[in-house]
Structure formats: structure tokens, C-alpha cells
């Protein structure tokens, strides 16, 4: 993996070069809230430093929009014409994605691009280049360290294009793919070779970061994984947890690894479309059949489903890892205080 050094004062210049060939999406504040948005004007440098400033929503909508057309149709003269939306034309750079979200995108990649390729996901994923930032300081809900979701990325477990490591006035730029190298190649003169002390500083930053993340609330997953996998969580525990769930779907929408969708249909006259949209296993309608029969009518059953999918070893075998990256967004989103760490703790107590 190639490592080069970028002075922070050169970041804006580098991003301007990217604009010639890419749309750049970066974290930005809107009324105090952070979002991933197409970049215009100055970069908000405090959102691109080592402190884990996580947008409220993960960037999954870039590859899996909240709603997207599958195909439109036109009926006429006894026939039907289908048309599929064009592949999004622009190449995109996602700048400032955090380790947990990059691992989340890896999860989605594995899910959507294996065993029946998802055409729409692939079309949005192919032109995307990821510039991830390693976190050196956690925010209050971060528990990536319990989930192999960060705070630093490693090429042997995660696919990424570039990882930036914040070293005060400079970034160490780690290129992990041809796509990443192409961005550095935009102007090699902006970058310098790291001296051994920089590489050492990077490793020290990672060690320090681990110490800091371990001081945050942690989530001891192994007992929860074992109990869920062996189906030995008493039903009353799921009922108890389910009673604290508001059925709002918030945890699923803010989760970098939640991938379920519904399909909707519209028509006006002879034209219309079929589209998909984010759906949530929190909702009782998620499994309700036309007969009225609902295999997961009880909240506790739905709660069990969500955490079975996230944590059971059956899914770990299928997906290569647990379906949680430790970003902590479900903690922020949940009005019932049953985000992942609270559930894991309850299951651990048995």
C-alpha cells in the first residue's frame, strides 16, 4: 500500500483537481446538522480531522437511495415498453467518510454484489471512490472498536480507496486501490514521500486512538452473538426489549448495514413506474400478508428478527462479519434507548 504525505493546506487544491473529473461529496453542516452533500465552496476542515464527527445519516443513500426507480413503463397499441434509468453519469468521490461507514459500505457491497447482482447498486457503486478518514478521537456513542468497524481501516479486512490519517498539519495518505492512486496521480507534486518518523507517528496515532476508543462505552458482543445464534434468549427478554421499541424504523434507516427495501408502484394513464424504497423490519407491515396473517405481528418477534440478522453467526457466515459497524447512530436515533449496545448488554445479562 502506497503512503504519501499531503499538507493540509493543499487539501482544497487537491479537491479542486478532483472536481474536474468527479462530483465530490463531503460532510457539510446544514443548520448545525452534518450531512454528506455535494461539495461547493470551502471544505469544512473540522469535519475532516481525526475527531469522529459522524453525520446523522450514513452515506448509504449514495449507493442505495432512499427511493429509486427500478423501471418505468409505457403501454400503447397492445404492447408495453420498459425503460430502465440511465447509469448515473458522474464519477463521484466520497471524501471524509469515516471508517465505520466504509466498513458499512463494504457490508452492502458484499450483500448487493454477490449472489444475484443488484444492477442499480452496482451502477452507483462502480463510479464511486472512497476517501476514508481514520478516527483518532471518538464521539460519545462510538463503539466501532467492538465491531471491527474502526477506528482505523486495514486493507486485509476492508476495501477502501484512500485512507487519510490526521497528523496535525498533514495527512498521511494511504492508497489502497487503483482508484485511489488515480486521485493522487491528479497532481503528484502536491504530495511528498513520508519519512520514517511520519510512519511511526501514524502507528502511534493508531495506538493512541485505540486507547481513547476503549474509554468510550463499549459493547461486549460475544455473549449476545452466542445467545442469539443458539436461539437461547428467553422470549420474555425479546418482549421486554420490544416494549421499548417505538416501531419508528429509525435505527434501520440510520444503520450503514440495513439494506431492506419495499417496492412501490404508480401509474397515471398509460405510463408509470415501479420503484423501491427503504423499508424496515421494525414495521409490523413488513411481514403482513394479504390474508391478514402476520408471522411477526408481535414487537418482540420483530426485535428478535432485527438482532438475529445483525448478530447471529448464521449471518456472519453468510456476510463475512456482523451487521453492525459500531457507528452508534442507532443509539442517537432510538427514543426507547434500545440501540445496539443496550441490547447487547441486556442479552449478555441473560
Amino acid at each position, binding site marked *: 500500500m502506497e503512503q504519501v504525505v499531503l499538507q493540509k493546506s493543499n487539501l482544497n487544491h487537491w479537491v479542486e483537481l478532483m472536481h474536474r473529473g468527479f462530483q465530490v461529496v463531503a460532510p457539510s453542516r446544514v443548520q448545525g446538522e452534518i450531512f454528506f452533500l455535494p461539495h461547493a465552496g470551502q471544505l469544512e476542515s473540522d469535519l475532516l480531522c481525526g475527531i469522529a464527527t459522524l453525520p446523522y445519516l450514513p452515506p448509504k443513500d449514495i449507493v442505495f437511495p432512499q427511493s429509486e426507480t*427500478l*423501471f418505468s*413503463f409505457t*403501454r400503447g397499441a*397492445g*404492447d*408495453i415498453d*420498459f425503460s*430502465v434509468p440511465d447509469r448515473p453519469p458522474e464519477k463521484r468521490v466520497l471524501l471524509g467518510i469515516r471508517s465505520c461507514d466504509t466498513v458499512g459500505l463494504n457490508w452492502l457491497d458484499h*450483500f*448487493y454484489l454477490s*449472489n*444475484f*447482482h*443488484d*444492477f*442499480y447498486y*452496482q451502477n452507483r457503486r462502480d463510479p464511486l471512490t472512497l476517501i476514508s478518514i481514520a478516527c483518532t478521537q471518538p464521539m460519545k456513542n462510538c463503539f466501532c472498536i467492538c465491531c471491527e468497524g474502526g477506528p482505523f481501516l486495514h486493507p486485509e479486512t476492508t476495501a477502501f480507496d484512500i485512507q487519510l490519517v490526521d497528523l496535525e498539519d498533514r495527512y498521511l495518505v494511504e492508497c489502497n486501490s487503483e482508484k485511489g492512486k488515480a486521485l493522487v496521480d491528479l497532481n503528484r507534486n502536491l504530495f511528498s514521500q513520508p519519512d520514517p518518523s511520519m510512519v511511526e507517528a501514524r502507528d502511534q496515532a493508531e495506538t493512541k486512538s485505540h486507547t481513547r476508543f476503549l474509554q468510550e462505552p463499549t459493547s461486549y458482543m460475544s455473549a449476545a452473538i452466542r445467545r442469539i445464534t443458539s*436461539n437461547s434468549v428467553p422470549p420474555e427478554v425479546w418482549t421486554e426489549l420490544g416494549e421499548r421499541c417505538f416501531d419508528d424504523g429509525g435505527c434501520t434507516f440510520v444503520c450503514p448495514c440495513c*439494506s*431492506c*427495501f*419495499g*417496492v412501490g*408502484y*404508480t*401509474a397515471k394513464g398509460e405510463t*408509470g413506474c*415501479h420503484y*423501491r424504497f427503504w*423499508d424496515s*423490519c421494525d414495521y409490523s407491515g*413488513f*411481514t*403482513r*400478508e*394479504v*390474508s391478514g*396473517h402476520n*408471522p411477526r405481528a408481535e414487537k418482540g*418477534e420483530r426485535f428478535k*428478527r432485527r438482532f*438475529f*440478522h445483525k448478530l*447471529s453467526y*448464521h*449471518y456472519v457466515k*453468510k456476510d463475512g462479519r456482523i451487521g453492525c459497524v459500531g457507528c452508534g447512530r442507532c443509539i442517537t436515533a432510538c427514543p426507547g434507548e434500545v440501540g445496539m449496545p443496550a441490547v447487547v448488554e441486556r442479552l449478555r445479562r441473560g
Partner: protein
Amino acid sequence: MDNIYLPHKAIITGIQDETYDTKTFEFEFVERAVKESFRFLPGQFLEISVLGIGEAPFGVASNPNHPERFRVTIRAVGSVTRALHELKTGDRVGIRGPFGNGFPFHEMKGKNILFVAGGIGLPPLRSLIEPMLDSRSEFKDIQILYGARSPADLVYTDRLKEWEKTPEIRFMMSVDAGDPAWTGNVGVVTTLFPKAGLRTQNAVAFVCGPPVMIRFVILELLGRGFAPENIISTLERYMKCGVGKCGHCAVGHKYICLDGPVFSYKDMMKLSEKVV
């Protein structure tokens, strides 16, 4: 790259009224290449779209040995099925598939075969019954027990008459409630069991019908000595994509659309959610 969500155009080539709320549709794909390459296994299902209204999964009800024209039997219960019932011969729909694992066929050769069908559960089993009859000599006893709510709910009545007559199969039926013209058995399908002379050795049972019927039939079969691995049924769940992506039909770590819809009772018991 294949787009798994984009349907192929198909034309309705025939519609047969089965009951007051059920019709059988015959389809043919419009594009020649699709039509010529289309194959399906017994027990697999299709996703049929009425454009702008919706898409829903349906088990294929016809003989896989004749894939160029295939049939699906549909009861009007929801928006998609009601819209399908409005269509006429010559109308076009979108079809994706086939999806799912399907029933075992070749592994069944040399065995006694029992079919237990309830109501609209007969159509998917017919996709297995018909090819077995095509290769009749390769199977031992073939017995069909069919139950419906009333005589008016029986589907394929012409075919049932043939099955009653042919020496190739042992066929019995029952209705939960008869009418003045009904002279046959009255009672749920399990009431046929004591009279059926079941072959329980070297035997496999295929069960399809509403969930409550499946539950009682499985209990009955277990009681009569069928091993869990020799009881084969289908599971249904609300389903959207058919290819394991949308998440709706997941049961435990299995997807009904990919790993099913056909499961042995033994495999059903391994799922981490109660299914029967």
C-alpha cells in the same frame, strides 16, 4: 449485466375460470429468445407484475415438461390478484423468474409418493404431479388427497375427474362442508387419512395448503410414521424481490425466495423462528 428486477413481457394466451374467486392463466413470453430459453422446476415460482398496480409471487401450476406455455392459478384476494382477474386473453403482464429451489424430482424415483393438498395448495403441487405422471413407471404408488372448503372451492375439476378414473394414481378428496349435490367425504383433509390406505414405507409426502392445514397434516403424517425429512412442504411469506435482497421473506437465516419455498419438515424445524 442482467437486471434481476426488470420483468420480461408475457402475453395471456388463455384464462380458465376455476371457482368463484380463482382463475387459471396461461402465459407465453413475448420475446422469442426468452420464450425459447425459459425452463422451470416443479415448485418454483414467478413474480408477475400488473404494471403500475403491483407485483406478486405465484407458484407455477403447470407441467415443467411444457415450459413454452405455462399456467398459474390465482385467487383474487389482494390488489395485484384482483387486477389480474380483470385482464383478458391477449393482455400483457411482466414476469420475472423462475425463482426458488423447487421440489425434488429425480430423488423421488422408486418411492411411494403422497400428495396432500388444501384449497389453492393444489396448483403448485400440480407442477410436480404432472411430470411424475409423464414418467409414471419410475415412481411407485402415487396418491393424492385433496381437500377444499366446499365443492365450489375445488380447482381443476375436469382434471380431478380424470384422476379419479385413472389407475395410475389413487385419488381421494374431501370438502369441509358439502352441498346437496356432494356425495363424497365431508371433513378436513386429515379425515381422509384413516380411509386412504397410506403407504408409509419408502414414502415421501408433499404437503401444500393454508398454514393451519399444513400444521395438522404434518402432525398426522408424523403420527403415522413419516420421518421429518420425508415430509416436504412449502412456506409462504410476504415477498417483494424474489432474489434475497429486499429482506421481507427472511425466516431465521433463510430466505423463502432463495432457500425455499420448498422445505422438508426437518429443515423447517431448524429455522430459528416458528413456521408451522
